[in-house]
């Protein structure tokens, strides 16, 4: 099964998708917000394609709930055929063609084009040359602008990337200044670092580590910080019972990639993680370990990491410069290509240098998306193989749990 693709022609810098709206930044610094549902509805020509197209682009997690039904080969084949039909369509859209679905257009609310963005809990966060910003996104359609034009500056520091988790906590990679965490609600933030209060660098922002951090992602409660400069590491956070008999998320320790992949004598390359998986690129492939964040919580005494397994891969050309994990697989960026190692073991490759790519593993409807900004277009891919993969056995991609 091949991914399904919608191409929007144009010269873009960044994109986001959130609660039915597609956000596009162009190089002039303008932000355009489109009604994504209406765009998808407009491309469906035949009602036979409605189910597959809407599952592919609007309801990414809908089919995870029907695993039992896919035990029936007739149902499974029927759905396969429906996806096969739309695989071939490869929709290509000019930006003028979707102007009627434009909710609003405005100057980017931040002075400069963003280095990175994230939308979480109706807030748009952005890193710019001036620091870290937040502003309200997903405003009512009656508002003048879909995104508030009065952002709040959270921090002066120049950062490289940010990733929000499901609890509006944001991990921030600050290059040579290290890894940080921003918690809007200030929930328990000092408790987590009770021994290290001095690590608060700004209101609601704490330094998790002073080791170089290029990008990061969330391994459940913990943060995986990736760096090809100083080595990657896991900042381990665990549920720990406090004196008040309540479990709190608390910082335990930093675990270097050498310890995670102990005994494998793996040099050099980048490692990355999310959810229950951690990967490391090696010559001729990648190695994977399963991570158990609750190994020592709730009076358990299990191992944090499983025995690493090798996945052979000849498709990577050059050094890995960024990588992420989501349900449908792991996405690996080399300088001139993007390789998607799918959870069913198949490989999909984009042989072009990429300006930016995004996945949305914590969204409710777009966790099967991959957005890729290329020189003259945005390609929106939908991967739909993972519904048919055994979630507890798979070694590629994050395990889906209801």
């Amino acid at each position: 099964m091949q991914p399904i693709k919608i191409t929007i022609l144009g010269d873009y810098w960044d994109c986001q998708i959130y609660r039915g709206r597609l956000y596009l930044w162009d190089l002039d610094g303008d932000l355009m917000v489109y009604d994504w549902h209406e765009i998808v509805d407009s491309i469906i020509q035949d009602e036979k394609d409605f189910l597959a197209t809407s599952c592919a682009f609007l309801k990414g997690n809908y089919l995870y709930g029907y695993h039992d039904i896919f035990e029936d080969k007739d149902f499974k084949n029927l759905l396969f055929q429906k996806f096969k039909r739309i695989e071939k369509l490869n929709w290509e859209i000019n930006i003028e063609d979707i102007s009627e679905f434009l909710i609003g257009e405005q100057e980017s609310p931040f002075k400069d084009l963003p280095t990175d963005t994230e939308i979480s809990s109706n807030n748009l966060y952005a890193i710019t040359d001036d620091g870290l910003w937040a502003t309200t996104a997903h405003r009512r359609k009656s508002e003048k602008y879909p995104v508030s034009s009065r952002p709040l500056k959270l921090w002066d520091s120049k950062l490289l990337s940010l990733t929000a988790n499901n609890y509006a906590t944001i991990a921030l990679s600050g290059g040579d200044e290290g890894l940080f965490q921003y918690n809007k609600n200030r929930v328990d933030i000092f408790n987590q670092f009770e021994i290290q209060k001095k690590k608060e660098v700004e209101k609601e922002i704490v330094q998790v580590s002073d080791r170089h951090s290029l990008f990061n992602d969330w391994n459940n409660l913990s943060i995986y910080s990736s760096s090809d400069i100083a080595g990657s590491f896991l900042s381990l956070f665990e549920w720990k019972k406090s004196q008040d008999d309540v479990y709190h998320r608390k910082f335990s320790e930093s675990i270097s990639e050498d310890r995670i992949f102990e005994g494998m004598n793996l040099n050099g390359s980048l490692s990355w993680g999310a959810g229950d998986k951690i990967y490391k690129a090696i010559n001729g492939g990648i190695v994977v370990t399963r991570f158990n964040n609750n190994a020592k919580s709730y009076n358990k005494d299990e191992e944090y990491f499983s025995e690493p397994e090798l996945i052979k891969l000849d498709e990577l050309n050059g050094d890995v410069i960024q990588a992420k994990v989501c349900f449908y697989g792991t996405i690996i960026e080399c300088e001139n290509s993007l390789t998607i190692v799918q959870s069913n073991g198949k490989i999909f490759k984009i042989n072009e240098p990429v300006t930016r790519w995004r996945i949305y593993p914590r969204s409710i409807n777009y966790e099967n998306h991959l957005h890729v900004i290329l020189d003259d277009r945005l390609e929106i891919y939908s991967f739909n193989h993972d519904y048919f993969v055994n979630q507890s056995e798979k070694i590629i991609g994050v395990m889906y749990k209801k």
Partner: protein
Amino acid sequence: MKIEHDEEIELVIERVKDGEGVKYECSYIIVSYHRNNSLKDKSVWTIDEQAELNCFKETQEKNWVQESIGWGMKYEVLKKKESEKVIIETIGISEHNEKLKIGRFIDGSKNDTWHGYPANYRRKKQDIPPMEILLNWIDLRVLKKHQASKIKQGKKCNL
């Protein structure tokens, strides 16, 4: 002509500002520790002194300057029929032996006295050029969009 190290070189640079030519008087110092590796934690130029000075001059002429910090590159535009290709040259080397292609120029005392060094944008955040400069380089086709994006995110990028 031999250019002395650690001595001010007086310059008058023609800048275009708001569509008009403006003369900018400043001085530039070829700093010896970015040449002879006497301080082990500094990057060093691998291009000669005249090329370093030319790189600085272009930075000023084209206004690739923001808040007393200038950014430059040494590049060549190869034209072939209707297409053109930009070759960006290595200008220096880091203390970790990495090839460096972006120059960072500083007027530290804000008295129009500048010096510069090959910037290592992957290891030092301060060495990442501002967005405005990168966008200007895209406009001038010195950089491609994907290269600017990678530089901004601190990713490895073969310029």
